[in-house]
């Protein structure tokens, strides 16, 4: 959806003076500044926010959102979008809640693998029919919603048997939330993966110039399928976290995380047109969004004004973090 176009050559020359600022910006520093500014702003209203309990609680809340955002970031890096991952997380949660009793810990693996397969299916259909990912995943969003409604028999499922096998995710170790540590481990693993293996470059090359990537012998189709698979697997993992956190699952539990996850990716400075950005800064973007979701309550903003502020802050944050290197990223 995003169209990039070369700026007319003359328009480029003006930007050279601020090169240090630009270098910081290109390195992905902007989201960190936005996060710092928000933390300071919330803390200024309410100094108790700086207490360890508050900050750790924020990290814990951010965990499932971050997982979804990381998966989304991989898809967005190729210039595509996955509108179905939150819906898939809801479905996976329902399946997991059913499965934990009879399968125990194996259910976790089954759910993540099953979710990954759903992602593979999406990728295959998208690359075969050459229908834009926006529409394919929109359709799958509907399917997942319908399926989780049927699977949950329109009721929420309390997990009792087998809860022990995932409950520990939201324990703390040395005062640190295991959940977020796990997210960090997953993110670091992905970052290392993207950095140390050729696939990272291939994903970015597809986002930046898919034709050139294809003409370089990169299996673009396979990689696109792979990122959808990864996104779906992370959605499955997010479902595990949600069930661990909520001890139950409902048909629509994670649905509402879709737009925040996308916002997190973009606030993190990943270009929606693809190729620029990555996992690390998405962590930061997810924290910004997680903070915004509760920060306005902490500051005590009247509920009716909150959406207005949220919308305005998101737009401004993205204006600050957007990387416009590739010319005018509009549309």
């Amino acid at each position: 959806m995003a169209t990039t176009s070369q700026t007319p050559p003359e328009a480029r020359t003006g930007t050279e003076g601020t090169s240090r600022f630009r270098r910081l910006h290109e390195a992905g520093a902007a989201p960190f500044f936005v996060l710092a500014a928000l933390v300071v702003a919330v803390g200024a209203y309410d100094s108790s926010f700086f207490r360890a309990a508050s900050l750790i609680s924020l990290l814990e809340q951010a965990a499932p959102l971050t997982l979804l955002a990381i998966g989304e970031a991989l898809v967005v890096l190729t210039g595509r979008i996955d509108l179905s991952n939150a819906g898939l997380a809801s479905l996976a949660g329902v399946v997991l809640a059913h499965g934990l009793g009879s399968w125990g810990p194996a259910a976790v693996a089954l759910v993540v693998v099953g979710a990954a397969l759903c992602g593979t299916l999406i990728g295959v259909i998208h690359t075969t029919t050459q229908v834009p990912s926006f529409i394919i995943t929109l359709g799958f969003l509907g399917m997942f919603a319908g399926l989780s409604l049927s699977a949950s028999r329109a009721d929420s499922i309390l997990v009792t048997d087998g809860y022990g096998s995932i409950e520990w995710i939201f324990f703390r170790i040395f005062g640190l939330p295991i959940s977020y540590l796990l997210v960090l481990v997953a993110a670091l693993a992905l970052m290392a993966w993207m950095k140390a293996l050729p696939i990272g470059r291939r994903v970015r090359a597809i986002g930046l110039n898919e034709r050139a990537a294809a003409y370089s012998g990169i299996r673009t189709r396979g990689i696109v399928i792979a990122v959808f698979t990864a996104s779906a697997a992370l959605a499955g993992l997010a479902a595990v976290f949600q069930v661990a956190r909520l001890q139950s699952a409902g048909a629509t539990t994670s649905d509402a995380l879709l737009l925040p996850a996308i916002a997190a990716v973009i606030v993190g400075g990943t270009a929606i047109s693809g190729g620029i950005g990555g996992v690390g800064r998405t962590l930061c973007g997810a924290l910004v969004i997680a903070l915004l979701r509760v920060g306005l309550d902490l500051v005590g903003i009247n509920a009716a004004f909150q959406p207005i502020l949220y919308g305005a802050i998101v737009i401004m944050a993205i204006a600050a973090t957007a990387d416009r290197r590739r010319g005018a990223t509009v549309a």
Partner: protein
Amino acid sequence: AVDSGSAAGDSGRCEPSDVTLVQSGRGLENEYYVAVNAGARAFAKAHHARHYQWIASNGDSSKQLSQIQSILAKGGKCVVLNVDPNESSVLPAIVKAVDKSGAWLVTQWNRPDGLAPESESPHWVAHMSVDGVPQGYETAKALFTSMGGKGSIVALQGILDNAPAQERFRGLKKALKEYPGIKLLGDQTAGWDRTKAQNVTQTYLTKYGHRIGGVWAASDSMGLGALGAVKNAGRKGKVKIASVDGLAEVVRAVRDPSTGYVATTPSTGAAQGALGMSIGYAAATGRIDPDKEPRGHRSFYLKPLPIITRANASSAPSPTDTTRLDFKNPWSQNGRPIK
């Protein structure tokens, strides 16, 4: 089943002046929550609470949980929460968070099967709900009676994974059994949504035509949508409608015989807001010890209220009317316990 490590048993009860009252629900663009907020706010005002806050989940379970966790991380033990969980699946986590921080929680409407305050934690003081079965049953009966005990109806369901929606529909089914002359032609979910209800009803009206003698809706907003469709089909007054919730607009429609709207239930929002707060407040300030309260005080339905029909519609109070609320006795409205 919720993890222990509870802060229970600590004797330190809160001074009334330290208590923070927090009411959580979907959002104030919904009349029901306006009534809940009015009730809770009225309680806060009556008790000069230091701080009262309304937080909106906007239909986002994760957000609701996050908001609550953040408020607990900040406010500690003297927080009283009256929560309408966005869906029952967030409730265990809310209970866990409250239990860990030692704050006080009262919940409304939704809870997963197998989870109850009396068996979980003293900090989950009570869970109250409104029994949807008699609501659905009574309104359906009123509908059937107005149709003369025979004919066909269609039903509009609420969001399918929602307990009250299911209870109300069960009430309808129960009434149907008692009225063999009434046939249920079809039921569809309209997701509590007025426009969607209007579209579904319109489609039903073209599908079944004049066979439809009545529409039963699980909520008033859907009932109003059905009314719109009936009106546009030129069958206003001929197709009877009944629904649940007590929206002001529906009460007005019930008063007007030409609409064909026969029944709704009184609004319970203000009562749920005020009672929830007063129970939590009583626990926080040490007036009651949740562990010592009987089971009927921990999980209960509100006393069923007589439904609103044309006979009593003109005397029905406004949903946001808080003058009749009794803040003295938190158990004043208790009906039967929830199993």
